[in-house]
């Protein structure tokens, strides 16, 4: 019988909670540690709320508006709204509210992922998948330690796909609605869900019969109409408040996203740029290069695994689009975006059963890199130059 909350999930979650608290309280006890950029407050929760989390605090406190620079409407609202509610109801600082959201989202996300994988294969694979997601080789576990709300998105897409494949289309759509209010990639999730319903039905009945089928349209509408309306409603409202048409997507230009080029051109551009530098490059660029290499390798692995019939195509497409679209506009933070897809799990497919000890090596490498990123982006005005 499957446990409702499996031990692998609880273990990984508790480990992240402990690491978060140790880091937060250690820095609190050593306040002379120089403030990093995008600093919050020097208490334990503030020490976990730098960079993007600081934006969330600003949005929670001020709402959206036309004069924010960078334009805050690039951030989607669900976590900020929830942080405000927790702050107002429990009278805790925003930083603590965002810590609670991160940790609740992480627990929900790992649990949803475990449930999804267990539904597709078996419990042992689900346990393994949780560990690969909890300690990603990309070195991005810092988003589980700092109070990044991204983890909510992991929960939403895992739950939405699970509900969709269980045939509960309406619930899948409702959960996807939370996803479109959490991250820009929520729109990708809805598109893939709609395509999934189409392909599933067309496989059974053929495309033309499917397109004339009322049942098919009911399923598509149940899965997609509410998230689409939710997203459109949000875009209209926040564009009005910010005074920028389509501001949640247009404002991405304010968070390091540039002109649109093909993702592979972006990678080539970065590699050429790094190769042409005469001065030694700092650690942030090498970290990003590591992540880009893993992303390319990981996507190839996912495609191969899908072709061998061991992975659903929806997860591959969702991962490709969720990484490819932001990569088309910039390299910054790409590791974080890739973490909230199926990509961190790609590497578990290539380790043979007799070499399972390698799992632990990969997790340790990921954790080690994440610790390096965490300390470099938070403790010093960094010359690491990694923008999380």
């Amino acid at each position, binding site marked *: 019988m499957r446990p409702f909350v499996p031990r692998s999930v609880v273990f990984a979650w508790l480990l992240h909670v402990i690491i978060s608290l140790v880091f937060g309280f250690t820095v609190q006890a050593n306040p002379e540690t120089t403030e990093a950029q995008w600093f919050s*407050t020097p208490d334990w929760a503030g020490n976990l709320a730098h960079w993007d989390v600081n934006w969330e605090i600003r949005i929670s406190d*001020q709402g959206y508006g036309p004069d924010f620079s960078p334009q805050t409407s690039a951030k989607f609202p669900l976590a900020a709204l929830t942080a405000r509610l927790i702050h107002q109801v429990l009278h805790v600082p925003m930083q603590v509210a965002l810590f609670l959201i991160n940790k609740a989202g992480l627990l929900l996300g790992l649990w949803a992922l475990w449930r999804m994988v267990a539904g597709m294969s078996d419990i042992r694979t689900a346990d393994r998948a949780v560990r690969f997601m909890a300690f990603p080789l990309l070195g991005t576990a810092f988003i589980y330690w700092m109070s990044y709300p991204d983890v909510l998105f992991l929960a939403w897409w895992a739950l939405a796909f699970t509900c969709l494949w269980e*045939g509960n289309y309406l*619930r899948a759509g*409702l*959960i996807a609605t939370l996803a479109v209010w959490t991250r820009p990639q929520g729109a990708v999730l809805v598109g893939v869900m709609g395509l999934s319903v189409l392909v599933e039905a067309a496989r059974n009945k053929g*495309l033309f019969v499917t397109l004339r089928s009322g049942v098919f349209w009911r399923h598509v509408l149940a899965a997609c109409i509410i998230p689409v309306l939710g997203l459109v409603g949000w875009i209209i409202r926040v564009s009005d408040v910010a005074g920028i048409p389509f501001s949640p997507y247009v404002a991405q230009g304010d968070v390091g996203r540039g002109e649109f080029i093909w993702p592979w051109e972006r990678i080539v551009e970065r590699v050429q740029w790094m190769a042409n530098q005469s001065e030694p490059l700092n650690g942030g660029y090498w970290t990003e290069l590591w992540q880009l290499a893993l992303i390319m390798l990981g996507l190839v692995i996912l495609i191969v695994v899908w072709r061998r*019939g061991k992975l659903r195509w929806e997860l591959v497409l969702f991962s490709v689009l969720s990484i490819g679209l932001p990569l088309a506009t910039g390299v910054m933070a790409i590791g974080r975006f890739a973490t909230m897809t199926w990509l961190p799990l790609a590497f578990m497919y290539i380790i043979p059963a007799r070499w399972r000890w390698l799992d632990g090596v990969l997790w340790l490498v990921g954790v080690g890199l994440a610790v390096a990123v965490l300390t470099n982006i938070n403790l010093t005005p960094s010359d690491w130059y990694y923008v999380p």
Partner: protein
Amino acid sequence: MSLPTPKSPPRFTRRGHHASRAANVHGFAVVNILLVALICVIFGMLMVFAGQPITPEAELVQQWYEALCNPGSDQAPLWELTWRGDMSQAQLKEAIEHYRERGGLPQPCKPVVDVNVIYFQWIPPELHSSYERIKFVAVNVYGEGRPTERNLIGSEQTGVHVLFDGSGKAFILPRFLAQSPLGIQETGDVIPLYNNDGLLMGNAQVTGEVIRLQRFDEVRLGVPLRLEATSNWGRYEAHVFVNGLEVIPEFYGDVLPPEEQERFLPPAQDAVSRVTEMRGVLWVQAKEPVTSLHVGFEIFQTPWDMRPLPALVRVVINDEA
């Protein structure tokens, strides 16, 4: 027409449209209805949340500054919103007029609150019972016909603290008043200095009475000080108030006689290392008679720290001064 498929993809072991779903259809419906209700509630809240700050400090500070910038406009925001401690309205009016006259602001001017720099401040223990929330609000102040680019450093200099009491009433504390919600300390007191986040950064002490220095018709007053940094400071600033009005202190020692230049203490300095003790004299040019003299200290942990609430000291004035 069938779509090409790879080898059979992983299937879910719980396919909802089979028997398991039929058995739980009622429970499924209830959960879905609850989820629909939740989504509707969240949607409604998002629509409101999008354009609404928790507290209206940006709007209040904008009104307050517009009144400050334009003496011909309704001055009620100045009288109603300013945190003025034990000052009377007449004293407040005098302080504001002095601030305008000494060129604290271009006249006329156009204020624009910098919504990007509105930060929660640490609430010192002695203010816990009085205030629920303290925020620092940066304001860009532009002269008429002048460029209106955002200026982060300038906007912090002209920014104000906003204090909200338990009932939600707001009070605005500008920098140019010889007042501090932390109270006024006395000469000789060792005053703990905190940054905006409540980190203990060191302490300050006015170590003696005012020194009076007259050269021709210029009178300068010197305040003997000791500053001790127990942490690294990004910056410190000292502000001087003569007769309740802010006066710009001397930034360069070469205006002093040679024998005084050695112990000249600048009113602001960047990058002070921890375990540093600075002793010296802070100088200010003043018109006599001087009936009161206050010095305020602000310590910044880093150059980009927000401004803390000022630690204010009343300086003893000897008879000659």
